[in-house]
């Protein structure tokens, strides 16, 4: 990479980032087999300190960022979450907590609300306990989440239900939507599993059949009409069966920053799955410097790096060639066209493989844990 001079953010005409996804910790009591965290999880000892996070927040505000999503792992494992939330809101960042909920209690939620937290996103693995707890690998989790949702609403915090759907729960889609209504959520986010990291290891267990997907899309479309003005439904369309890939992160290094627990700054939460990327760290460089100069960002900014078919495609500035991490995971080269795209030479092969996996009985989950060893590196 040293032989090519990479263009910087400003040379691409890219504005400062809009939102920061802050992974406060990789620790999490749940073990979802589709977790978006890297397979190599960061330990507690490597995590940024309270003061380091505060400095990051100050820098984020200075460069004009609007929003912060406090995420993980499980952000509430950190005892300084209140400090961090208070600092974000004091500085005027729109502050959102993305949590599994299982470690929360009413007092803590009250405190967070008083500190100005603006919104809570609570994840659900399914709509009934048995399957939900099996997927999350945490007994009693689902019941607890239902309780947490009530506490969130008791302190009048707005709630989004985050529902990751796949072949082992997608038939409950209507129940997910009903659950969100019953819990008095403002919004429900229905996302298909995205296949990298842990999820890729478990793809055969998760990939839905095309029929399941068509049916799901119908349900969402109908519910959107029926519930207009009552419940916002965000639906992340399934990638593998789409014609064109999603406009991943609004383009590499164009809108968002992701920070992992030890302070590495990533263009997206899965970027660590691309082995040759070198990340800069907020312990050494400023956020502003990193956004402008970091090689991990500049390498796939714009369109110069694209090979065919993206290079000559008129959608190249619409979807930016799709997801680099998915291209890496499925083709072995992050530069390749995302195979979710029907123009990718590998699309057909991967599509049939996925459709084939979806037909077979699902294998056992590989749960997200520290120190799991895999035979083949992905």
């Amino acid at each position, binding site marked *: 990479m040293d032989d090519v001079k990479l263009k910087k953010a400003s040379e691409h005409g890219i504005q400062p980032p809009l939102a920061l996804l802050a992974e406060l910790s990789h620790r999490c009591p749940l073990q979802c087999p589709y977790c978006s965290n890297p397979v190599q999880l960061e330990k507690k000892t490597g995590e940024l300190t309270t003061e380091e996070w505060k400095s990051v927040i100050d820098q984020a505000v200075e460069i*004009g960022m609007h*929003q912060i999503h406090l995420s993980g792992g499980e952000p509430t494992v950190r005892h300084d979450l209140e400090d961090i939330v208070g600092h974000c809101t004091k500085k005027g960042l*729109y502050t959102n907590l993305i949590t599994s909920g299982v470690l929360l209690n009413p007092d803590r939620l009250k405190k967070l609300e008083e500190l100005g937290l*603006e919104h809570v996103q609570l994840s659900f693995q399914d709509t009934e306990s048995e399957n939900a707890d099996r997927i999350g690998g945490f007994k009693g989790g689902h019941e607890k989440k239902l309780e947490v949702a009530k506490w969130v609403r008791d302190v*009048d915090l707005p709630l*989004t239900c985050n529902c990751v759907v796949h072949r082992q729960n997608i038939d409950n889609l209507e129940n997910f939507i009903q659950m969100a209504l019953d819990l008095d959520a403002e*919004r429900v*986010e229905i996302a298909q599993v995205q296949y990298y990291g842990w999820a890729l290891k478990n793809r055969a267990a998760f990939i839905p059949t095309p029929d399941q997907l068509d049916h799901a899309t119908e349900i969402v479309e109908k519910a959107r009409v029926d519930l207009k*003005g009552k419940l916002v439904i965000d639906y992340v369309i399934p990638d593998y069966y789409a014609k064109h890939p999603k406009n991943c992160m609004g383009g590499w290094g164009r809108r968002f920053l992701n920070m992992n627990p030890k302070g590495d700054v990533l263009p997206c939460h899965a970027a660590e799955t691309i082995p040759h990327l070198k990340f800069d760290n907020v312990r050494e460089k400023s956020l502003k410097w990193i956004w402008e100069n970091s090689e991990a960002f500049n390498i796939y900014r714009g369109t110069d790096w694209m090979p065919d078919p993206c290079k000559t495609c008129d959608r190249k500035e619409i979807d930016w060639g799709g997801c680099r991490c998915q291209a890496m995971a499925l083709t072995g080269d992050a530069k390749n066209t995302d195979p979710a795209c029907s123009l990718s030479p590998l699309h057909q092969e991967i599509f049939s493989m996925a459709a084939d996996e979806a037909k077979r009985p699902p294998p056992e989950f590989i749960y997200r844990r520290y120190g799991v060893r895999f035979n083949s590196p992905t």
Partner: protein
Amino acid sequence: MTDILKINESIVPKFPKHVRFRFNKPRKEWVILAPERLVKMDPIAVEILQLVDGEKTVKIIANELSKKFNAPLETILDDVIEMLQDLSDKGFIEENG
């Protein structure tokens, strides 16, 4: 959440609790912020939304704007209703009360 809101001149609009209308200094722009949503507001919308305080009715808002810009109340009222309806459909505006 409440039922679908139909904006008319006697409604008192306000921002739902999870929706913020803020000025971002470094970027010098007004935005509406909500979870996973970030919408830049054009100058006309900004004029209207700055008057949304959970007390003024749509009519009063339109009135103030019509004076400020020396424009006919009817046209302004239509514009205000149309814009607030659009924002309400997106979940960015609700009725106070």
